């Protein structure tokens, strides 16, 4: 059985200056296997600076691991060339956090959809392309005539983020990396977008790596979860188990701090043992 993606012992160290001794270990000996024929949704959670985006960038091939390797369909992604590389580019896609920054402000939002169609030769004719775009937009609940031909700033955040999801739909990737796709979106829209993502997974068998710091949505979207703390995996497993019964102290603190919109689910139910252990995890707060 072949694996779609395999991450083997990947460590990423950011070097500040050329001579600087201060190196930042953003991700430590990370391992992950995503099988090809069993698409799933995997959540990577963790507080700010824990290495989530670094992981996404590694998988997308935008940065190279310091040690370890990332295999796509059994091949190291840094060595991919020609058609294989094109296939990798096409099959591994992303939805990013900021629904504004992904649009080139110079072009209308169509650009986001037409470029991949052209580059990956997804359509036989202009008409075909237009049909495909309409189809994808409709699938995420947008009316094509409402959004096409507009500039990014003329659309709302929700609309923009859904166009992003539509782009992923259009490309029907094998692997979708969603790096905090709803953190900049209104609470009331989150549900809509996550729903689209889930549909994508269900209807097209797309494997999704859902990156978030928001455990509430993670809990709802994912099958399995990996919790990162300063580049280290502190806990991983089935979502239900991890959220309901966290083992690691950090995970417990995290889960306990989730503001559930539920009057019976108040903060402090899984109480943290002592103030000290909380202080231990006070993320990055310099002592005065």
């Amino acid at each position: 059985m072949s694996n779609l993606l395999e991450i083997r012992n990947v460590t990423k160290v950011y070097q500040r200056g050329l001579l600087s001794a201060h190196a930042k270990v953003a991700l430590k000996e990370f391992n992950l296997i995503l099988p090809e024929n069993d698409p799933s949704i995997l959540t990577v959670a963790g507080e700010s600076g824990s290495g989530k985006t670094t992981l996404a960038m590694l998988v997308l091939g935008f940065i190279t691991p310091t040690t370890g390797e990332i295999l796509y369909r059994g091949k190291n992604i840094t060595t991919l060339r020609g058609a294989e590389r094109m296939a990798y580019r096409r099959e591994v896609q992303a939805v990013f956090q900021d629904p504004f920054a992904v649009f080139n402000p110079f072009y209308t939002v169509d650009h986001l959809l037409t470029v991949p169609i052209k580059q990956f030769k997804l359509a036989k004719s202009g008409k075909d392309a237009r049909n495909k775009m309409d189809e994808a937009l409709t699938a995420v609940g947008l009316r094509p005539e409402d959004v096409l031909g507009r500039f990014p700033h003329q659309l709302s955040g929700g609309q923009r983020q859904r166009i992003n999801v539509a782009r992923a739909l259009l490309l029907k990737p094998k692997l979708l990396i969603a790096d905090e796709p709803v953190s900049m979106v209104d609470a009331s829209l989150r549900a809509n977008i996550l729903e689209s993502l889930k549909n994508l997974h269900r209807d097209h068998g797309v494997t999704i790596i859902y990156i978030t710091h928001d455990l509430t949505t993670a809990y709802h979207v994912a099958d399995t979860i990996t919790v990162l703390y300063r580049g280290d995996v502190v806990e991983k497993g089935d979502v239900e188990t991890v959220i309901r019964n966290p083992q690691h102290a950090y995970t417990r603190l995290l889960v306990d701090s989730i503001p559930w919109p539920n009057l019976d689910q108040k903060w402090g139910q899984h109480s943290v043992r002592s103030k000290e252990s909380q202080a231990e995890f006070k993320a990055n707060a310099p002592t005065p």
Partner: protein
Amino acid sequence: MNLATTENASSRNAAAAGASPILRVQDLVVTYYTDLGRARALDGVSFTLEAGMKMGMVGESGSGKSTLALAMMRMIKPPGRIEGGHVWVGGTDLQSLDDEGMRKARLSKIAYIPQGAMNSLNPVTRIGEQMVDAIKSHLSGESRQAINDRCVWALKSVDLDPGVFHMYAHELSGGMKQRVCIAIGILLRPEVIIADEPTSALDVVTQRQVMETIDKVQDELNSAVILIGHDMGLMAQTMDRVAVMYAGRLVEVATVREMFTDPKHPYSQALISSLPTLDNRGQFKGIPGLAPSLLRLPSGCAFHPRCPLASDRSRSEKPKVNVLPGGRLVACHIYDQES
């Protein structure tokens, strides 16, 4: 243990409910005059709040939450304009004050803790200086010692080491900065505190610490707190009352319990049911359609295009605010007859 505190708070709130409100907002109207047209960002908002109460203010982005806060502070800047309404704080009508009077009222009567504390502190002066600044602008007669004591008290109230006094903003973490802002906000023990999304940029753990700080401070001052945000979870965790805004109007105000168990307005209902909880894993129910643009609001009830219960009347007539038993406010035609 925490539940117990909540119980305490609610009983205290119940007691306070009888008292006369410390904050009264009436028919506040704000319009932004933009190139593309007039945007009525606040359309006759009225509510009251008693001392010691915490009210959450939720609503989609652009629904006018920050505008409301700024309007209460009389800090709407061009192209915006306050076009009507009153804000009473403890018997003073802020709209009737002259500019100097309003300046004095800020911070001493009504304090605003801004959205994005990350950038709200002057990067080139020490935190202490910024605190002293604020005190001196209001209490000219205060002695050095008194000023110092006040600052130390405020910093301690928000769980910060008094050493912060001598630090610069860039030396603090996000949570600390947010707490410094709160400390500045309470320096003059204002009667009303408005916090605009104080936690949206923080991660969950810090978020919780900040909310607990606000709680604690309020206990000490017994002022009325308005917390703006769009995270229903946060509201459920910390607030006494929740106000829901939609397109510049207040569509529902209710206690937290009522809001989560029995939302009245169709928008509130949709909002509540779209929330993920531990019990409904994997089910999503978004609100269909899109938020309207303030520039071209739908006629009648602004929510009608997305409302499953919309009637012909919703399409043509703006619903007025109905007062339901227990002081609940709902702006929907459905409840017209009940009042």
